[in-house]
């Protein structure tokens, strides 16, 4: 049966090429893998290998011909002993006839209208569930309790990281867990973030639920390839087959006087990535409720903790089942004159600013984001509809930061409600300095927020 040999595309961008040389003559036997011709493409001169076996019955395009379109028949291959069909190609008989299909496929994708992204639900947020009785605990205890509760509940949950076991956690967050759960589930790692993050991600792909503790988020940059390329994208790349239920948690952002390499905020970095969820607790209740939700979530979740908050005490529900939903912000302080939005330690900054503003007769509403991705824009929109003014507060850098994202989304969803341009309060756009005075100058203070608000009202 005669088959056409078509002009192949030898690179993703090639549409036509030159037949530089025929290496087989009419009448030559060819077997699969034999080089039959050389073609000059847009990139280089390349060899064309035969796929099928047979005899080169006729060369349709002589060597030296330029501008031969991809998929045009260039020769006819026949079976040994078979006669060569007259003139033209063999396309109508048995030749692979992909050319028209390709065109069709391309035309289809060109006309396929872009599906609308899932619309953002902007209905008024539901009120927070009342969990009843509370007691005062530190953020550190809240995180530890969350892990212990979830590890008791699910034997597939384990904690892995540097100094999480015998040392009891570099910041004492995992205190007591080794005693309760043993070395099989509280697993000390050598200083090898890239390796153990890949290892934990691989384990999660099989359905285990690792909690990966980085000593601080700064070191997750060693492992960011696995967080993004391996953990966040595999579900999509596998067409929904292979989820990755894993938690990456660590103190994030500035601590105190630890210099440029130990003080970075990763909210914007990880918040950028589809396939990740990112939470940033402020209070003990946030920490406990969000970490429990993160561990139970079937997706990779980044938990941005804050070293400065570990020792802070907050009221936290005592209910054994207490958990918070990922993706819901909390109004920490209702107000009517201006909306202040913060996350993690910046919630405290915003709350302090709100106190000062109250003395000046300005009633600020403070929103604790709790979750960076998904972002609860509905709650912020509702607030801005009431206050008509927005100030975002974060310790990270301003460029392409969380504030920039919130402001843009408010412009998209609530532009007409604004009475003044929104303002971002952010960390200063420099690597973190060491000197005490300079460090203080680099991080948002309540005064900065007050000043920003005073310009708006």
């Amino acid at each position, binding site marked *: 049966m005669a088959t056409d040999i078509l002009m192949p595309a030898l690179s993703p961008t090639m549409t036509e090429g030159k037949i530089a040389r025929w290496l087989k003559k009419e009448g030559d036997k060819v077997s699969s893998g034999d080089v039959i011709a050389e073609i000059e493409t847009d990139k280089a001169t*390349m060899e064309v290998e035969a796929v099928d076996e047979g005899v080169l019955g006729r060369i349709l395009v002589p060597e030296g011909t330029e501008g031969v379109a991809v998929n045009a028949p260039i020769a006819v291959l026949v079976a040994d002993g078979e006669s060569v069909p007259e003139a033209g190609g063999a396309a109508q008989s048995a030749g692979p006839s992909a050319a028209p299909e390709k065109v069709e496929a391309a035309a289809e994708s060109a006309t396929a209208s872009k599906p609308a992204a899932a619309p953002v639900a902007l209905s008024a947020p539901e009120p927070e569930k009342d969990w009843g009785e509370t007691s005062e605990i530190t953020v550190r205890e809240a995180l530890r309790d969350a892990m212990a509760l979830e590890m008791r509940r699910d034997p597939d949950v384990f904690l892995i990281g540097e100094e999480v076991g015998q040392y009891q956690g570099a910041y004492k967050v995992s205190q007591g867990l080794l005693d309760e759960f043993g070395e099989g589930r509280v697993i000390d790692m050598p200083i090898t973030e890239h390796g153990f993050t890949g290892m934990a991600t691989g384990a999660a792909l099989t359905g285990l639920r690792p909690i990966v503790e980085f000593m601080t988020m700064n070191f997750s940059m060693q492992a960011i390839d696995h967080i993004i390329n391996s953990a966040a994208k595999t579900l999509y790349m596998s067409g929904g087959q292979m989820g990755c239920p894993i938690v990456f948690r660590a103190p994030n952002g500035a601590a105190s006087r630890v210099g440029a390499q130990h003080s970075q905020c990763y909210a914007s970095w990880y918040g950028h990535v589809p396939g990740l969820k990112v939470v940033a607790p402020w209070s003990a209740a946030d920490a406990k409720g969000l970490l429990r939700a993160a561990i139970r979530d079937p997706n990779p979740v980044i938990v941005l903790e804050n070293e400065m908050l570990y020792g802070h005490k907050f009221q936290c529900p005592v209910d054994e089942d207490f958990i918070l939903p990922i993706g819901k912000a909390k109004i920490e302080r209702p107000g009517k004159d201006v909306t202040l939005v913060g996350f993690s330690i910046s919630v405290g900054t915003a709350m302090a600013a709100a106190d000062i503003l109250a003395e000046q007769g300005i009633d600020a509403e403070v929103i604790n984001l709790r979750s960076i991705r998904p972002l609860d824009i509905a709650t912020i929109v509702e607030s801005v509809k009431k206050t008509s003014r927005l100030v975002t507060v974060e310790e990270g850098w301003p460029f392409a930061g969380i504030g920039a994202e919130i402001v843009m989304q408010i412009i998209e969803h609530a532009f007409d409600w604004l009475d003044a341009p929104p303002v971002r309060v952010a960390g200063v756009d420099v690597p973190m300095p060491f000197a005490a005075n300079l460090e203080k100058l680099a991080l948002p203070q309540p005064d900065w927020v007050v000043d920003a608000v005073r310009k708006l009202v």
Partner: protein
Amino acid sequence: MADTPTSNLAAGRNDPSLDTEGLKRAFHDMLLIRRFEERAGQLYGMGLIGGFCHLYIGQEAVVVGVQMALKEGDKIITSYRDHGQMIAAGMDPRGVMAELTGRATGYSRGKGGSMHMFSREKNFYGGHGIVGAQVALGIGLAFANKYRGTDEVSMTYFGEGASNQGQVYESFNLAALHKLPCVFVIENNRYGMGTSVERSSAASQHLWRNGEPWGIPGKQVDGMDVSAVNAATREAVAYCRAGNGPYLLEMSTYRYRGHSMSDPAKYRQRSEVDEIRQKHDPIDHVRSQLLASGVEEAELKAVEDGIKAVVADATEFAKTSPEPDPAELYTDVLVEA
């Protein structure tokens, strides 16, 4: 060191580990991969496959010999050069070809492509495009086996080019430290894109010794001989199943085609490729072993015809399957809890 690493190269060719039935299966599986890959190359030329497409032609003995040493439940992970692994693991050529052409019926529903396919059912964990990443992920599969208390192993494949990545050595340390049941399989096809192993690795002659600092036993294997591959893998797998920790196999093999489709092939001589194809082709080798053992030419021809039909069917299936629905753009980003 638990085992003295030895070179298997000299002994390799006539290793008796596969009997006639085994050789027949190997012949079938290797030829299926080769014909599948040739067809994939052709579909690429026709514009039905786009982007990257890394063919496995020349290396078939490696995955087939390895696969025949595994049991149900063993896990597999590799790089972007993954079509051979998937077919050897028993994944359906239709689903693989449909994914190559970006169709809704592909293993990743058209969202992964040539480099990213997965199968929970066949314990195939991808399909990874970042050179070396699959090695750390692979010890994670081994970690999971150990955590769950099974005797399953993780077959973690990577190229000799990938063997220069830092995370490979982090993984060697972790696997040895925690005695993880992981067989590291270096597919040394002599080139990483256009860089020969001699130009990329200071230890180019003995990558099988790269685990020595961590006490990981290693072996260099003639990766063009499916029996030798199978024998070495059996040994490695038994070692891992027994709880001894990881094992390293360096498979000496060769890639006939370009790195991906647009490869100018200026970094090696055509004569080098021809020499290996003519004298060391893994499929020809098995074919002559089978003929020598009395198997009829006609039987092998029947196998070939069967394979042709399977590949033609997979091609037709891929070509006639629809592209993914536009709504698929937004699905599978997150698992809905």
